């Protein structure tokens, strides 16, 4: 019985440790089973180094045709499950074919790795970085071990960052002018602005500002678009009169946002919109949507 069980068990335990694992920042990441786990955080141009430790179980030996570690950047479409598009793939051979009898440690290093895209977990698409250790065996199947990592890339302060200003209305019914102080916000930013009422002939219940994320995947006829409302922030309660100006102050920090992604590897895009919604007393909605660009600012540089 023991023998049988032993036959299906992997013959060894593989662990991956990072050389700066203790100091490296870890961020929570949602796993496929819904639980969150802490995952080390990397940035583009970081050197990824560490050790792979292979430890056969007691009294076993591992015969293999070579040991390698790969750094993979993958895009996975959920509607096309199982198909990964690797946009980054780096390999380090750790061992020539042979046998491992006892615990064996292999150092590895990927120096200044280019990781152009951020880790992203969307509705229909996932972009992830993973370290994959493969102990290649001919007949018994290779032994694999994965280590997820999160990549975040900082963007510089944009050179041009105009405010968004617009006058919209429905003739003889509602006429407003709104203004957001910027068109590009970093993830901990605060949206300031105001809504100026030029004409009010409807009875309003309230006015909300929504943050919407539009994720489009695929290309051409296969494009899938998914829109989520990530934030619903009430700006006004009741009906204003002409000339009233309502302040906007929305802190982005509490919401789970990512930077705007435009056409990542021709596979997907993620865009953000501010949607100003006026709801009248008959629950009719009047809205105007404006795209904003989100970017990640280096933490200590954020204001």
């Amino acid at each position, binding site marked *: 019985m023991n023998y049988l069980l032993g036959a299906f068990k992997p013959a060894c335990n593989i662990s991956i440790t990072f050389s700066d694992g203790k100091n490296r920042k870890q961020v929570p990441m949602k796993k496929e089973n819904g639980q969150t786990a802490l995952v080390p955080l990397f940035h583009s141009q970081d050197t990824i180094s560490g050790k792979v430790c292979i430890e056969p179980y007691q009294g076993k030996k591992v015969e293999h045709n070579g040991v390698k570690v790969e750094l993979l950047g993958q895009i996975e479409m959920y509607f096309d499950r199982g198909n990964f598009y690797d946009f980054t793939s780096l390999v380090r051979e750790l061992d020539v074919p042979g046998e491992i009898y006892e615990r064996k440690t292999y150092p590895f290093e990927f120096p200044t790795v280019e990781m152009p895209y951020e880790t992203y977990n969307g509705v229909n698409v996932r972009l992830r970085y993973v370290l994959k250790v493969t102990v290649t065996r001919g007949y018994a199947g290779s032994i694999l071990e994965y280590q997820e990592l999160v990549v975040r890339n900082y963007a510089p302060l944009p050179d041009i960052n105009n405010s968004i200003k617009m006058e919209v209305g429905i003739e003889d019914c509602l006429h407003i002018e709104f203004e957001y102080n910027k068109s590009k916000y970093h993830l901990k930013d605060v949206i300031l602005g105001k809504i100026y009422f030029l004409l009010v002939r409807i009875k309003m219940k309230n006015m909300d500002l929504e943050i919407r994320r539009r994720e489009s995947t695929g290309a051409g006829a296969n494009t899938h678009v998914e829109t989520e409302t990530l934030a619903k*922030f009430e*700006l*006004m*309660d*009741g009906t204003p*009169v002409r000339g*009233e100006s309502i302040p906007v102050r929305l802190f982005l920090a509490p919401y789970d946002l990512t930077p705007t992604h435009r056409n990542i590897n021709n596979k997907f895009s993620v865009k953000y919109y501010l949607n100003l919604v006026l709801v009248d007393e008959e629950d009719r909605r009047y809205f105007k949507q404006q795209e904003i660009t989100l970017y990640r600012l280096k933490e200590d540089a954020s204001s």
Partner: protein
Amino acid sequence: MIADGSEDEEKWLAAGAAAFKQNAFYMQRAIDSNNLKDALKYSAQMLSELRTSKLSPHKYYDLYMRAFDELRKLEIFFMEETRRGCSVIELYELVQHAGNILPRLYLLCTAGSVYIKTKEAPAKEILKDLVEMCRGIQHPLRGLFLRSYLAQISRDKLPDIGSEYEGDADTVIDAVEFVLLNFTEMNKLWVRMQHQGPAREKERREKERGELRDLVGKNLHVLSQLEGVDLDMYRDTVLPRVLEQIVNCRDEIAQYYLIDCIIQVFPDEYHLQTLDVLLGACPQLQASVDIMTVLSRLMERLSNYAALNAEVLPYFLQVEAFSKLNNAIGKVIEAQEDMPILSAVTLYSSLLKFTLHVHPDRLDYADQVLGSCVKQLSGKGKIDDTRATKELVSLLSAPLEKYNDVVTALKLTNYPLVVEYLDTETKRIMATVIVRSIMKNNTLITTAEKVEALFELIKGIINDLDEPQGLEVDEDDFQEEQNSVALLIHMLYNDDPEEMFKIVNVLKKHFLTGGPKRLKFTIPPLVVSTLKLIRRLPVEGDNPFGKEASVTATKIFQFLNQIIEALPNVPSPDLAFRLYLQCAEAADKCDEEPIAYEFFTQAYILYEEEISDSKAQVTALQLIIGTLQRMQVFGVENRDTLTHKATGYAAKLLKKPDQCRAVYACSHLFWLEDRETIQDGERVLLCLKRALKIANSAQQVANTARGSTGSVTLFIEILNKYLYFYEKGVPQITVESVESLIKLIKNEESMPSDPSAESFFATTLEFMEFQKQKEGAIGERYQAIKV
């Protein structure tokens, strides 16, 4: 329908309160375990109950108060959190993550309060941020309560002078700006309530607005409490801004309430110095605003201020308060053509009171006010609105009360013109008020001119007014009125006989035209007053200035004759009769024989023609005898005529005892101790004998009529007369006659008689015994009498 509504409301309130309580409980638990995140979460949920639109202001207030209490706890918790190292800036950001605006803003205000307390940022910045952010609530009811909360928590944190939050960057200007802004926004919301919802609920809405007005007014109160709001600040910033808001909101309820609020919360001194600004705003208000009440209150306040602080009066002059007010009122009245008369009168009444308090020395002001009032009333006819009448009476009473002196009021030429507009009944009341005022203050009215003016005022009780009396005046009231007029006459007095004569002439003129009913009340005091005048007349030939006195006794007596003549026609012969006698006496003093004789003649004529009641006759006769006895002026002939007549009257009295008494009284007419010429013992005896005879027959009458002997009282009375004249030494009264009379009485005494007569007789005898003991002539004469 409505009942259902309120029932539902109770239900909603109960539901809201329950949910509220539950979240408050969780919040408290989070606070107890120092869990900021949960505390924020549950407090936001708790505050979400305030988002309801279903409650009336009253019920909403209930919920709001609960929230207020809970937020105090939260504020303490925030404070503790910052002490534990939580950055207040972060906290200030954290509370703004709430998705719903109303809870978010309540939390923001609470956090803001803590933020100010930590002094990590200038108070003004935070206050400005809060008041701006609150714009997000445009719903009137919720907005008002939110801003009211803001006002409440910021009250002790304003960077006022002397406040701990006053820093280099924060000045009182910021505090004022903040409150003004909050006030403006609240007022806008409050006004907006009026225009929301269906027209049929207008009444309910107005009621609800009434309930909410104090929330708005509170801001003005806060402003008035700021140390830093001094006169300059008030004049240059606060007042113009507040007035601008009031005028521009163009809402009747708000304008009325807020103007009144300004008047009530800010110091009088400020009002005084900014009077033209405040008044300038009045005509700009909506036509339907009750400016009258507002202005009245303003003037009332200013008058009280002046009354309590005499030292501020110069300021009133300096700023020309009166003319400003007067102008303003003129403008307001002009602007509102169809203003009810009541309002106008109220306004003038207040202005008058103000003038009286502030410029007591400026009668012309008061007169001016009355003049404007007349102008306003003219063309409106008599006032028939009872409230307006009341107000007019109050207006007219004001000068009287103030000056305590009708004389001053009489100088107001417009005063009687105003009185003209009262109805008859009220005129009477007014007149009584005036008279009472005179009496109360013992005001002497010293010139005929003033008297004339006064009577013009009190015409109501002096004359039957022109119009037919619709209402029968209550007899008691009438008497009381006329009595007061009688009293009044004695207050019209001048030491100078000439002027005094003029006064009485004026009185005569008024009284004689005043209708017959009044004469019997008014003539006697007038006569008495005139008689007093006679007594004061300088003795003829004793005029040191050699000036021909224009007022002579003769003239006055003629005057008296004229006025008394009016009386019998009233008819009040009784009164006239007495007055004639009094005049006669006065004439006697003045040595005016023909006049005295004339008066007596008049009295006799009255006695003969008008006095028919036997009892009255007795009394009248006694008066005649008494008066005649004292008269000195008559020559023998005249006196004889009069005495003879009197004795004749005496004999003609109906009842025997009356006859008897009258006759023996006549005896006095013939013997005057100090006058040699009138000592006619024969006729004295004759009278007494006649009296005895009558007494006898009286007894006989009694005997035959009732079968019992009458009283001996009459005899004893006659005995007393005998004794009197015996004592005086009338030769015709002899010892024998006295003795026989005593015997006669004693005989009568033996019969059963009444005890009063017995004791009367005993006393008489005792008296005789007593006189016997006396030394000298009297004693001797009595010794002679043997009893």
